[in-house]
């Protein structure tokens, strides 16, 4: 059996700890869990946000995509709080998009279409040139697999507990 998960400083253990903590926070207030689909959907949203957040926090600011995710989450939470005042907040950042487009034209749009798709997928990818984008994609893939595995295990845990 692999002992990766027993390393206290590994990405997996950091992520699982945070995610489980978030899960307890989500589940705790609900003494009577209703079966309403709306509730389910809301809980799904919160769980998904918890997963992304815990993943980004585990990586800290070492990566561009983690910084972008954290920024996006913070702006979203801020915009939600300010919605009551009637203010429309922009969720997605487009300030750096022009810079990215310039780069694309400079270096020739050999892989332009796919690079753009990749930029949309990877958070914070709009501002990166192809070189950094590939780096970020590699790290992002690694973290996504870890996230998927841990959420899967968390689900098994919850299922086993109930």
């Amino acid at each position, binding site marked *: 059996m692999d002992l990766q998960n027993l390393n206290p400083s590994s990405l997996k253990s950091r992520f699982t700890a945070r995610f489980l903590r978030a899960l307890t926070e989500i589940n705790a207030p609900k003494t009577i869990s209703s*079966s309403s689909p*709306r509730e389910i959907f809301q809980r799904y949203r919160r769980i998904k946000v918890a997963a992304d957040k815990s993943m980004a926090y585990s990586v800290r600011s070492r990566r561009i995509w983690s910084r972008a995710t954290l920024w996006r989450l913070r702006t979203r939470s801020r915009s939600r709080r300010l919605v009551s005042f009637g203010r429309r907040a922009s969720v997605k950042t487009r300030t750096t998009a022009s810079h990215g487009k310039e780069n694309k034209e400079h270096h020739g749009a050999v892989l332009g279409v796919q690079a753009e798709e990749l930029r949309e997928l990877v958070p914070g990818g709009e501002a990166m040139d192809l070189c950094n984008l590939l780096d970020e994609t590699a790290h992002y893939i690694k973290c*996504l697999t870890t996230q998927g595995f841990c959420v899967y295990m968390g*689900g098994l*845990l*919850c299922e086993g*507990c109930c």
Partner: protein
Amino acid sequence: MLHTLESLESCNYDGMDMTVLERQAARLKWQQQYYVVQNNNPVPLSASSVPQSQGLIGSNLGSGQMVELKRPEVFLGTDDLQDFVNLPVSGPDFGESEKLDLVPPEAAADYCISRTFNCQMTTPNIAVMKEEREDVILEKIESTTGSGRVSFNKRKAEAVADHKSKDKRIRGEGESEVKTKCSTEISRNSSKENSKASEVQKPDYIHVRARRGQATDSHSLAERARRGKISNKMKCLQDLVPGCNKITGKAGMLDEIINYVQSLQRQVEFLSMKIAALNSSVELSVQNLPMKEFPAYVANFPAAAKLPEMAGLPCFQLNPLQKESVRFMLNESLHPPQTEGVARASVCITEQSLSSSSMTQLQPFSTWNMDPQGLYNMYNMGFH
């Protein structure tokens, strides 16, 4: 002219018996030939001179490597200069004519040959002829001696680079067809052979040798370095993404990567949806869980234990159809429908996921593979 001299000095002529001064002299002579040509009217080449050049090659090949080394001197003879002495040429070039006497005596034989050669030619377009001769010589040498020595190839590359850079500077647009044909031929022949001649980047940033047939300006070098970096990273990504070994080409690879990232993201969404749907008011104590429970769970699912990072993925290769069903479920959950509808939607999802993945890793989901009524009951149980 000065920078050509510098470039010449910087090159390593291994095994050559030439001093810097001799090389300078040779270069000067070569330059003077070009300079002279500029002042004269162009005259068409004589066809008879071409076979003569081949004769020259035949005689010169006996000396083997020496032919190539003496290349600058082959075309430069004291006699050539004397022919042109009477012509109006600018002062500085001939001010350095004294250096010509420093040509080593070994080159005398070559000079004799070149003398006979040159006498029959008309003066202008000599540079063209000389280039053609050089190219032909290079070609012949290439074909006969093969691509054995890397230094040999490097010198050739340098010579051709010099060639081309000189042409750019002196000729401009006035390139003759013959020369371009020769050079393209050479580049075609040598592109396969000279694949070993790599970029030699010395600590001094000025002196860079490029591959044969490629530009040496800084932009293209930077571009080449960038492309190299990108291909390295694509190789790393190829290791990360499963099933990418068969695909060649950047575009296909990128498509695969995009699909993989999308499926990973959907997988996380699906899993969190599952947790949200299944989750009851369970109190998870964080202290106990991570270190102890997970190994136990991992042991329970041997398939998952084999590839911990990949455990989730084969289960959850959500194709677009599944994504649609997830969306359908989400849409449904927004409006207040029946619980049964939600249950049916989730059954659709799980059945599809079951069909598209291996069974061994789906033990937790086996409980879902029930009739809708049973699932509905389970839901009720789960939520109360």
